């Protein structure tokens, strides 16, 4: 990051025509990201976008950075290798709910626990877009899709809960339509040392339109968005009349007037113990009612790459930089002469 370079959003646009369906939420996220990058003055050549397969995963093509459009589900693995080898880069993963949580579930949870310096942006549209409309691991029960004409019988994942259960150090949620909030979250994710997991509710207007209407609709959104703010009591709704308490490990929605503001949970994403973050994640299972957005968890921990770098440093301090001839000879040698 240099403060000398001044970028505009255009600098971050690649020469490739953007090819999502008109009206797709992906466009908005792309704009937020390009804006964020430009505002932040990151250098383009030091940024890499890695993705899997899916509509969301076409993202790298549209960014004037380095990029790899990988294979389905494997972006976190590819990005992990890159980020560990090259801690100097800013490595981002763009993925979908199928890509990240279905086929890629294992790589996601492992990259989280390892605290590898990658920023995972999960565009959750609760559907398989690219393959034209099958249900995903975040689709709600009962949903009728191409592959579930009788209704989905899987219980969905709650991506935020899953990430917290997998020891993620940074977990957040935002919404495609809310560009300022998205940029705020992107900034925090970028600044976090280690893995960041960002769920972005993204509207697929072709196969799952209005899935997030409770959070984006003019009428509903004010009632349903629970915006988590650091060190603030968790209140929401018109006049902040509603609030969240956590009792016996369980987060519940109450009327602030009923319990008094002091009983309301004060949000602190930075506490080491993940209990409160998890409790908050259970407030909603799918965005059909009051749903928290914002940063659930953000704790400091050494990253995989920095620990590895440290081991290399320590080893070199202890043994010198390494001489292969000596190493080989060290295993015990004998001489044969003519």
């Amino acid at each position, binding site marked *: 990051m240099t403060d000398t370079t001044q970028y505009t959003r255009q600098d971050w646009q690649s020469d490739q025509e953007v090819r999502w369906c008109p009206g797709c939420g992906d466009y908005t996220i792309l704009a937020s990201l390009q804006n964020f990058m430009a505002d932040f003055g990151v250098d*383009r050549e030091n940024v890499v976008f890695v993705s899997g397969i899916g509509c969301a995963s076409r993202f790298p*093509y549209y960014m004037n950075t380095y990029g*790899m459009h990988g294979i389905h589900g494997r972006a976190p693995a590819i990005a992990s290798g*890159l980020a*560990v*080898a090259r801690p100097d880069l800013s490595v981002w993963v763009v993925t979908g709910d199928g890509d990240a949580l279905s086929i890629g579930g294992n790589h996601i949870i492992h990259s989280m626990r390892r605290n590898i310096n990658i920023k995972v942006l999960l565009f959750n549209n609760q559907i398989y877009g690219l393959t034209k409309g099958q249900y995903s691991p975040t689709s709600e029960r009962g949903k009728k899709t191409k592959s579930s004409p009788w209704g989905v019988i899987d219980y969905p994942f709650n991506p935020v809960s899953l990430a917290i259960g997998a020891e993620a150090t940074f977990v957040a949620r935002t919404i495609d339509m809310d560009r300022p909030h998205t940029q705020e979250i992107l900034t925090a994710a970028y600044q976090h040392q280690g893995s960041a997991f960002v769920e972005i509710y993204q509207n697929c207007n072709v196969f799952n339109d209005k899935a997030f209407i409770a959070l984006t609709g003019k009428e509903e959104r004010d009632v349903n968005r629970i915006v988590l703010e650091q060190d603030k009591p968790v209140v929401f709704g018109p006049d902040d009349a509603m609030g969240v308490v956590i009792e016996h490990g369980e987060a519940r929605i109450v009327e602030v007037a009923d319990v008094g503001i002091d009983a309301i949970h004060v949000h602190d994403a930075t506490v080491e113990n993940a209990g409160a973050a998890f409790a908050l994640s259970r407030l909603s299972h799918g965005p059909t009612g009051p749903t928290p957005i914002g940063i659930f968890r953000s704790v400091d921990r050494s990253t995989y790459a920095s620990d590895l770098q440290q081991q290399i440093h320590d080893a070199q301090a202890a043994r010198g930089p*390494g001489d292969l*001839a000596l190493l080989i*000879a060290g295993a015990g040698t004998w001489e044969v002469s*003519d």
Partner: protein
Amino acid sequence: MSEAPTTDITDIHAVAIRFAGDSGDGMQLAGTRFTEASAIFGNDLATFPNFPAEIRAPAGTLPGVSSFQVQIADRDILTPGDQPDVLVAMNPAALMANLPDLAPAGTIVINSDAFDERNLTRAGYTTNPIEDGSLNAYRVLAVPMEEMTKKAVEGTGLKGRGVLRSKNFFALGLMGWMFGRPIDTTLEWITKYYGKEPDVQAANEAALRAGYNVGLTTEMFRSTYRVQRAKMPPGTYTNVTGNQALAWGIMAAAQAARLPVFYASYPITPASDILHELSRHRNFGVRTFQAEDEIAAVGAALGASFGGHLGVTGTSGPGLALKSETISLAVMTELPLLIVDVQRGGPSTGLPTKTEQADLLMAMYGRHGEAPLPIVSVSSPADAFLATVEAVRIALKYMTPVILLSDGYIATSAEPWRIPDLSTLPDISVPFATVSNDPERFLPYLRDPQTLARPWAVPGTPGLQHRIGGLEKEDRTGNVSYTPANHQKMTLLREQKIARIADDIPEVVIDTDADADVLVIGWGSSFGAILAGVRRVRAKGHKVARVHLRHLNPFPKNLGDIVKRYPRVLVPELNRGHLWRLLRADFLIDAISYSKVEGRPFKAAEIESRLMELIES
């Protein structure tokens, strides 16, 4: 060792000794130490460790038997020996399992203390073979090793069950005496290894000496043997296993390429030791990454390659199967990547600790769509070093994933290796792209006209930002393209790029007698057995030609001419005819497959007799 032995010394050229016992008896260790001492003494040698898939099957049972065979010789040898001359049997199960392999009239050194009723029954004996005359055809030396070890260890401080653990050193001492191995090498090693546990160190030393001295002093061992130093090309030697040499080969290649190593792997027998070895060398800047599975491992390695590291991933057959989708991505993105496959017995979990060569066709064809890539093979433990450097050279120069085939036999067995002068390794570095190759925009798929390789522009390089991926790429620009003609063109370009490597690898060297009309052609670990078999046939006055392949894809340019020159072509393989099928399809020759799938290497005698059959037919 002040006292001179009062026994006869017989000079012999070679001897094969097999240490066999329970998995817990430390036979791999005894074998390895004997090998090391012989290596340092100056014998040529070859080893064959053989252990069960279980960590420790119940003590005393047949499945729990673990063995280590080593052949030492005063001349260049190629295999651990077809049949051991001496069998050390630490318990009845070890005897039962290994006796069938022993050479006629061979020697058996028995730990008689273990031949109690419980162990006999467990091994399936109804009577005690030491006593029932069933071993009359052999020379049997029954030694109460446990008793003697206990006595020796008395007073070293070690107490209880631990005491008996030293009995492998007792056996080692005995063998050392019998074959005139100096014990000081082993003593040094004990100090180095057990220095931090003085009582264990003392116990092992005592047991080792006791074993040696028992040989020296008892009547039982009337004769000992001497295997002279072998005449080997001058140089500095060390003893290496295949996995070790391969790991060092990766480090050497990285040095020669001036790249950092990124090795991502998921543990799997028999490849894990490569990970273990590499993970020790942080001071060389080697990054190892134990991934959550094989798919993540190859993905991470590919990511590191994208970042300008030498991305390497190692595994065995089941893991290679899992990696295939990602290898296909590496083919499409045209990034350098080394994939090591240490083959083992299959299919499925198969015979995890046994050897086989049955992954060649998967390496060739085991990817969807047209995804050709180079294949390099390893033919002996020491050979793994240079084979690896060669595989990396190709990967970097041609911007391609390369599969390097080793196998369980090579991986775990050892041989003396003349350490090459590392400064003579070729410079295999390739320059990263730093400036655009086109005034308009950087063209990530603009190729080198000769190698057809695309440029390697790594993140961090200003101005060369570009995107790659698994969708078909447009020629030159690398943009996504679904155009029919472009797909045809790119498919052919990827194919030609690999095919052209044939111009850049050595032609095969044929080891032939004039007028030979039988050619034997092999690849991989059967090198030693084939060469030894051929020597035997030649020693009988017959004419044979022999070719051993390092490059399996593409084939060396002269291979077609050579194989067509011989009316009969024999292809011995530890599979059902992989190379054989490739030769038939490429050259339309009616080659003869000699297939063996027993989970163990060819014996020289097997090659010999199959060749004799052919010659005499």
